[in-house]
């Protein structure tokens, strides 16, 4: 028996590289993309799990994916469209608001799920290793299924009102991507903050409410005066929703707005990634 234990001398030149190096926390942690790629199946498993359990033991099942935006559309049409007579750029108000509600719901659901992703998976996080980035990413991806179902309804609505999409429809996937990246960018910040400060999960409903009205869902962006357009466009969802309406319903192309929105998302996303990676080193201790 060795008492105290003997240890081999520290690594000499020519020894193989360790597979894993564990070191105390650092301020700036690089993102390991190859590791994320290696864990892509786990990402798929989490998304599949969240999708499956969402509608378990319900009678209506996936219909719930359409009921929420449809219900909001009816309420908005009654109060904003008919009562307050909000202009809708020549498009029937129900279609006008529904076309915005679909990407909006994708964003809001994605943001909510990714913000809560780490706290609700605290059990797994303290028992197994996987890159923690998987959690918020799975949060923004799982609402895509609901999105697709609601999108089908949108197509029917467009047919009912006699609208044919413009050539800009090919850009639709980019706008979807922009919505996803927005919810990811904000989700990274909020989920990392929420692990330590649980206030954030309670502020989330307020943030989303406010954001809804700060986005052109119930009113068009053109309603704002010219001088405010720039500040308004700093909200990336403005670019997403105006872009959606342009691609599907032929409203004015919002080039400047989209440019600003993309820049904002890129900055938020990169900042969020770095903040998340730094805080990741402490998650299991604090969650």
């Amino acid at each position, binding site marked *: 028996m060795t008492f105290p*234990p003997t*240890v081999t001398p520290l690594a000499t030149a020519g020894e193989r590289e360790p597979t*894993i190096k564990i070191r105390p926390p650092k301020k700036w942690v690089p993102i390991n993309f190859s590791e994320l790629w290696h864990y892509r199946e786990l990402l798929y*498993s989490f998304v599949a799990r969240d999708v499956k359990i969402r509608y378990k033991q319900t009678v209506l099942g996936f219909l719930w994916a359409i009921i929420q935006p449809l219900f909001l559309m009816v309420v908005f049409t009654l109060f904003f469209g008919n009562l307050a007579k909000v202009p809708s750029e020549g498009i029937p108000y129900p279609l006008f608001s529904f076309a915005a509600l679909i990407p909006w719901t994708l964003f809001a659901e994605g943001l909510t799920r990714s913000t809560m992703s780490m706290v609700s998976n605290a059990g797994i996080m303290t*028992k197994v*290793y996987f890159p923690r980035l998987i959690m918020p990413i799975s949060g923004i991806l799982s609402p895509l299924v609901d999105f697709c179902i609601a999108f089908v309804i949108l197509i029917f609505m467009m047919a009912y009102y006699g609208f044919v999409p413009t050539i800009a429809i090919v850009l639709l996937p980019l706008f979807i991507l922009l919505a996803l990246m927005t919810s990811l960018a904000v989700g990274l910040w909020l989920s990392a903050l929420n692990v330590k400060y649980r206030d954030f999960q309670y502020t989330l409903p307020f943030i989303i409410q406010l954001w809804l009205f700060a986005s052109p869902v119930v009113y068009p962006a053109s309603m704002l005066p010219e001088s405010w357009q720039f500040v308004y466009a700093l909200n990336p969802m403005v670019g997403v929703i105006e872009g959606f309406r342009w691609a599907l319903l032929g409203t004015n192309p919002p080039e400047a707005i989209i440019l600003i929105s993309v820049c904002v998302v890129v900055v938020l996303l990169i900042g969020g990634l770095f903040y998340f990676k730094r805080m990741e080193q402490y998650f299991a201790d604090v969650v």
Partner: protein
Amino acid sequence: MSDDIAIRVRGLGKKYLIGGPQVKYHTFRDAIVNSVKAPVRRLTRQGTDKSTNEFWALKDVSFDVYQGEVIGIIGRNGAGKSTLLKILSQITTPTEGEVDIFGRVGSLLEVGTGFHPELTGRENIFLSGSILGMQKREIEGKFDGIIKFSEIEKFIDTPVKRYSSGMYVRLAFAVAAYLDPEILLVDEVLAVGDIGFQEKCLGKMESIADSGRTVLFVSHNMAAISNLCSKCILLDKGKILAYGSSEEVINLYLNSMKKESEIILPEYSQRKGNGLVRFTGIKFFNSEGNDVNNAISGKDFIISLEYVSKENKPLNNVMVWITFYGLHRQLLFTLNNELVGEKFVNLPPKGRIICSIPQFPLSSGVYGFNFDIAVNGQIEDWIIDKAILTVSDGDFFGTGRLPPDSHKGFLVHHNWKSEGI
């Protein structure tokens, strides 16, 4: 066992902040309030005492593990065993120190990691396997084996929330058992379910240990540790106390436990029996009549039990039992005066009862023994799970030879001869 290193740990330390304002369920409001209070605290020198707020779960831990070794990690509750595994599993970061790992790591820190009650057994196998680190194709290949091992074929498509707890742990362990990494870290997840299944679990652990994988195994089950692990690390209050052969380290551990839980026999309160007679002391002697602490294999060993009768009357029909147990809590042998025809009649109210064992027949190691005294068929005093006896190597056979460590047990005198047919 190759000479290649698998895990190299140097100067590992993990500090937690306990109590105080830093680690309470944190709200943003608290953080703001604290930072406002901070300058006031500094002015009035009301700073929190750093030393009472800090807790070093691990400190200065350094060791090497080579490929193919199966190492046990033992220690009291709170010694830092699970923290060590968590750091090696990359779940939590160390406060100081370095670890280098050569090979893929799989961690089993809990049974049922990732299981979701709403999903079926089949879906949970894929989810849990994926979380543990297996690729989908790998899980598909092992799927049938997992089902068979868990014995829940019929229920594989029922949601797991409908399973009994036994079924749940069997399925969870089955998935974990098929994890196939080069380096495996296991934290006390052994032996779940009924006896039959526990045997299966131990068997699976044995085959993993024999397979050439590197395994680190935390457990309180000394029998399992001595069975599976060739070497052991003993942790105590975050530091390594010893790192050596399992037998030596386990003995050290048990002895230290015994020292800590030493009782003063007359005052000991958790004993059974009616209480009219009480044991007041135990002494061990060798054949020369000297006071000893241990027994020696093959040498005469004498146990002396001192007693006192509360009623100060002579005692009739006294029977004394001493029963020896091994690491597995299995009964080894029992000593009793009536077995050898010794009747105790008219014993003084205060005295000692002496039991002599010629050529003590156990191999070296640490054993437990229970002892009780009965008068007229009534058990008056019974001490359970408290007494420990350490046995040292001795020349039992007179040849200077003893069985190897892998074959320790009873030592039995025997003769050999051969004949032609």
